[in-house]
C-alpha cells in the first residue's frame, strides 16, 4: 500500500524507519506491473535503476540524512517525457527524436535529485506537448484511471494518470496552455502551474517559450507546495527565470482564509459549461465563503479571444523552437540529396499530424505579409488579456473558476476536429498568456454511465488563479478547501 501514500506520509514513515525507500519503490513498480497495461501512463521505466536509487536513499537515511534539507528523500517520482534526465531516454513522445538519451540533467531534475527524489520513469504526453488528450503521442494513448474509455487530458496526461493511479508518488509536467491543470482536473489530482519565470526551464524541451512552465502533479496540496519549494528559483542557465526569493511554501498552509477576496469571472460561467461542472464549482465557492472568504464577480472582457491569441503565439514560437529538429545533430534522419531535402524528409516523416499542423500555422502567421495581421495583433491582444487579469487582481486576491468546461471526454471523441480540441482549453489559456500562477484541485465528481459500474464517476477540477508570484496564496486557499472536503481522499483504483 506504500504506493498510495502522499509525499508527506511516505517521508514521515521513512524518517521513522518504519519502511524503506526500496519497499516504497517496489510498491510503485508492482502497481505499474498491475495496472499500467490498462492505464499506459509510462513510456519506459528502468526497475533495476529505480531500486538502485532506492538503496542509495536507504543508505542515506540510515546514515542520518536530514529530511528538512532533503524533503523528497526516497520518494519515487516520474517525469513527463519532455524533461532531460542524464542518461535516460527523452522523446517528447515523438518519432523524430529516435533513440535520444539526455547528456545532462534539467535544472529541475538536479534540484529533485539534490532533494533526494528517485527519478525512475518517462511519462506519456501529446507529441511535443501539443494536445489536450495524449492522443497525439506517437507511442500510445494514456487512459483515464477513473474510466479507461476516456482520455486523461493533456498534454501531461501520463503525469496526471500515473499519480491518480498511484503508480508514482508525484510527477512533473509542463504547462503551456493548461497542460498541467487540465489533466490534473480530469484525473482528480492537484496540478500547479507556477508564475512565468518561477521555475527554470533549462532542460525542458521548448514548445512556446513565452508561455511554458514546469510544475508538479501531486495527491494533495501539501505535496504540491513541497515540490514547488524544491524546483523553484532563479537559474543562470535560463535567462527568463526571475530573481525572486523562494518562500517556504509549506509554511503558507495555515488553514486560515478569512477575509481572502475571491473573484468569479463572469465570462467563464457561460455557454458550453457542463451542468455538473457548474454545480461542483458553485458548491465549492459556497464552501469557500463558509470558510471566511468573500466573493465578488470580476470581469475578464477579452476572454473570448484567449484561444485565438494562444494558437497564434504558441504556434509561432513552436515553429521557431522546433526548427532544431532537422536530422543533423540528434534524433532520427531521413536522407536526402542535399540538406534542404534531408530536413524536409526528416521532419515530414518524424513529426505527427498535430505538430505539423501547428508548425504550418506558426510559420504562416510569422511569414512576410502576415506577421502584422496575425502575430503582432495577437501580441497586442495578449497585452489586453494580461491587463484584464491585473485589473481584476486590484479587487480580488484569487480568481476562482472551473479548470475545464466538461469532465474527461471519450477517447476519439475530439481527435478528428482540431478546433474543438483547442476550445477545450478555454479556461486554462488566459493564465499562461498573463503569466500568472494557477492550480487545479478536485472539487467533486460527475456521475457517468459505465458498463457494469452503476456508481462510476469522473473528477471535476477547481481552478485557482493568483497574482504574479502569489503561489503561497493559492496554495493556502487550496489547502483550506481540500482539508475541509472529502474529494482528495477518493482514489481512482
Amino acid at each position, binding site marked *: 500500500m506504500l504506493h498510495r501514500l502522499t509525499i508527506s506520509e511516505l517521508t514521515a514513515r521513512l524518517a521513522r524507519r518504519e519502511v524503506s525507500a526500496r519497499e516504497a519503490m517496489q510498491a510503485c513498480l508492482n502497481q505499474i506491473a498491475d495496472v499500467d497495461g490498462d492505464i499506459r501512463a509510462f513510456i519506459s521505466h528502468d526497475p533495476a535503476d529505480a531500486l538502485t536509487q532506492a538503496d542509495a536513499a536507504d543508505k542515506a537515511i540510515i546514515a542520518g540524512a536530514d529530511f528538512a534539507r532533503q524533503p523528497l528523500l526516497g520518494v519515487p517520482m516520474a517525469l513527463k517525457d519532455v524533461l532531460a534526465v542524464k542518461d535516460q531516454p527523452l522523446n517528447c513522445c515523438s518519432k523524430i527524436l*529516435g533513440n*535520444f*538519451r539526455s*547528456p*545532462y540533467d534539467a535544472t529541475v531534475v538536479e534540484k529533485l535529485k539534490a532533494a533526494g527524489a528517485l527519478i525512475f520513469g518517462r511519462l506519456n504526453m501529446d507529441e511535443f506537448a501539443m494536445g489536450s488528450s495524449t492522443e497525439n503521442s506517437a507511442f500510445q494513448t494514456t487512459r483515464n484511471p477513473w474510466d479507461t474509455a476516456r482520455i486523461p487530458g493533456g498534454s501531461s496526461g501520463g503525469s496526471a494518470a500515473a499519480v491518480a493511479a498511484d503508480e508514482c508518488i508525484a510527477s512533473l509536467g509542463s504547462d503551456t496552455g493548461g497542460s498541467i491543470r487540465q489533466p490534473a482536473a480530469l484525473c482528480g489530482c492537484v496540478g500547479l502551474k507556477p*508564475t*512565468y*519565470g518561477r521555475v527554470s526551464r533549462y532542460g525542458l524541451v521548448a514548445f512556446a517559450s*513565452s508561455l511554458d512552465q514546469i510544475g508538479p502533479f501531486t495527491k494533495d496540496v501539501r505535496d504540491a507546495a513541497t515540490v514547488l519549494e524544491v524546483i523553484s528559483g532563479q537559474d543562470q542557465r535560463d*535567462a*527568463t527565470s*526571475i530573481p525572486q526569493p523562494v518562500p517556504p511554501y509549506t509554511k503558507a498552509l495555515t488553514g486560515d482564509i478569512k477575509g481572502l477576496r475571491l473573484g468569479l469571472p463572469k465570462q467563464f460561467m457561460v455557454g458550453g459549461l457542463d451542468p455538473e461542472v457548474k454545480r461542483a464549482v458553485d458548491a465549492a465557492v459556497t464552501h469557500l465563503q463558509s470558510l471566511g472568504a468573500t466573493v465578488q464577480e470580476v470581469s475578464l472582457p*477579452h476572454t473570448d*479571444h484567449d*484561444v*485565438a*491569441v494562444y494558437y*497564434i503565439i504558441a504556434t509561432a514560437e513552436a515553429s521557431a523552437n522546433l526548427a532544431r529538429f*532537422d*536530422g*543533423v*545533430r540528434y*534524433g532520427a534522419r531521413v*536522407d*536526402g*540529396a*542535399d*540538406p534542404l*531535402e*534531408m530536413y*524536409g*524528409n526528416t*521532419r*515530414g*516523416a518524424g513529426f505527427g*499530424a498535430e505538430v*505539423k*499542423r501547428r*508548425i*504550418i*500555422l506558426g*510559420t*504562416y502567421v510569422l*511569414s512576410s505579409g*502576415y506577421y502584422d495581421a*496575425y502575430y*503582432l*495583433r*495577437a*501580441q*497586442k*491582444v495578449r*497585452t*489586453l488579456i*494580461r491587463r484584464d487579469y491585473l485589473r481584476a487582481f486590484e479587487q480580488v486576491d484569487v480568481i476562482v473558476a472551473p479548470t475545464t468546461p466538461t469532465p474527461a471526454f471519450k477517447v476519439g471523441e475530439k481527435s478528428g476536429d482540431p*478546433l474543438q480540441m*483547442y476550445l477545450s482549453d478555454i479556461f486554462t489559456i488566459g493564465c499562461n*498568456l498573463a*503569466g500568472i500562477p494557477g492550480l487545479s484541485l478536485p472539487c467533486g465528481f460527475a456521475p457517468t454511465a459505465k458498463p457494469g459500474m452503476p456508481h462510476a464517476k469522473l473528477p471535476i477540477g477547481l481552478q485557482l488563479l493568483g497574482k*504574479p508570484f502569489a503561489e503561497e496564496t493559492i496554495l493556502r486557499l487550496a489547502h483550506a478547501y481540500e482539508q475541509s472536503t472529502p474529494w482528495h481522499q477518493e482514489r481512482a483504483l
Partner: protein
Amino acid sequence: MSAPDFNIKYVAHLARLKLSPEEEQQLGAQLGHILGHIEKLKEVDVTGVEPTAHAFPLVNVFRTDEPRPGLSTEEALRNAPKQSSGLFVVPKVVE
C-alpha cells in the same frame, strides 16, 4: 471565412516540412477552419496597445564571463544520426 491566399505548399517549404498530397489537402482544409476562428481577433481595437512578448520581460541578463564545464565532443555527438572524425556528417552542401 478562411485566409484568402493560404498557400500550403509555400508555407510547408518555409517550414522545411515535406507533406504528402493527402496531408496538403487535409492540413489545408483544417487550417482554413482554424484561421477562420482566428479572424475574430480583427474585431479587437488595438490602437495604441503595446505588444506583449513576455509576461515579465527581463533585460540585460548577464552572468560572469568565466569558462565553465560543458558537454564533451563525445557527449555532444552521442545522439548524432551520422558522425565522423568528431564531426556531424550532412549531405554535400557545395558542388
